[in-house]
């Protein structure tokens, strides 16, 4: 004899199964006469690559107030499922407070040389009211430092889903904005992170 608890548990399981099958509308999938040979399941991919092999983009030494350096990178999405892209970095050093970073989104046709901005065309959209294609303009020290706080490409209010083969170029410009930063140094790592949506 099964216990009363076991009976009640059985009833509960039956109800759960019934509700699950009903709510998903797949009752017919359990029909004994249905035949669906060759079914397969495959996962998608998310692959983001750049044209510079992950090398440093920017280098500035002996800078003085007004000194500037610019570099570009082109990223290509090779995944099979749509993805959002976010941008963040790791920043250190006192000079970062005296450096202005501007990130401009745009395009470069073909395969540009690493760091080259030749042929760069900024997006026509003025995302932040700071100029065509600009998606960040501020102190390097204030650049988002985690994926959770990252810039959403191109803006959080108009997130773009990247599809297979989609490519965008980014121009990074760093300018020393104050003589108060004399004799200092800073470092920065930049990361573009694609995540399936």
């Amino acid at each position, binding site marked *: 004899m*099964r216990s009363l608890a*076991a009976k009640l*548990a*059985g009833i509960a*399981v039956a109800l*759960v*199964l019934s509700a699950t099958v009903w709510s998903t509308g797949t009752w017919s999938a*359990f029909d004994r006469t249905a035949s669906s040979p060759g079914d397969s399941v495959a*996962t*998608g991919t*998310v*692959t*983001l*690559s*750049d044209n*510079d092999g*992950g*090398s*440093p*983009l*920017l*280098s*500035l*030494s*002996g*800078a*003085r*107030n*007004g000194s500037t*350096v610019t570099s570009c*990178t082109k*990223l290509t999405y090779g*995944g099979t499922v749509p*993805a959002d892209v976010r941008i963040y970095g*790791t920043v250190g*050093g006192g*000079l*970062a407070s*005296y*450096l202005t970073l501007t990130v401009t989104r745009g395009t470069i046709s073909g395969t540009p040389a690493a760091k080259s901005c030749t042929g760069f065309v900024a997006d026509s959209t003025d995302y932040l009211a700071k100029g065509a294609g600009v998606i960040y303009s501020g102190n390097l020290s204030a650049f988002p430092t985690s994926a959770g706080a990252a810039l959403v490409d191109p803006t959080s209010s108009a997130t773009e889903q990247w599809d297979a083969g989609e490519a965008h170029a980014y121009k990074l410009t*760093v300018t*020393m904005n104050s*003589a108060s*930063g*004399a*004799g*200092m*140094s*800073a*470092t*920065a*790592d*930049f*990361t*573009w*992170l*694609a*995540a*399936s*949506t």
Partner: protein
Amino acid sequence: MSRLKALWSASPRKVLAALLVVLAAAGVAVGSGANFNSASANPSNTFSSGTLTQSNSKANQAILTASNLKPGGSSNGTVDITNTGSASGIFTLTKSTPVDTPASPALSAKLTVVITDQGDPACVSSCPAPATVYSGTLAGMGAISLGTFAASAKHRYQFVVTFPDSGTQGGDNSYQGASTSVDYTFTAAS
């Protein structure tokens, strides 16, 4: 369904446990926000700023002092300015308002000054020719851009002050016993 019923009849606890495992797995998959991702990184971007300092071989001293000048006479002095910082800098020469005794006629408006950039005194070959950076009355000189000095660059400046002779007998008598003084300042800016 009949298979499930048979399993249930044989061992309801096992079926229940299996169902809980399935539901738990589904909950994990839905609740974790898991996705696929891929990162492209450009690490090790480096930035460093330079320092901007200068040395003045006549710091807090007069470049030249002339006394008992007569019409047609002159005096000269030199000063070496070096960019001792690690960054290049834009150097500028300015002067204070001359102090003339007597105030009128002002000797500073009579004296002429020629300031020449003689380059690095240590230069021995392919040296640039001396360049005049100012020629005019002592009083009339405004701010003069001396150009950009690279780190460690040194420039020697020669100052030649001349009391022009008016050419007429006694024509400069009004300047007898007159004096003037002025401060020159070299400024470096990044």
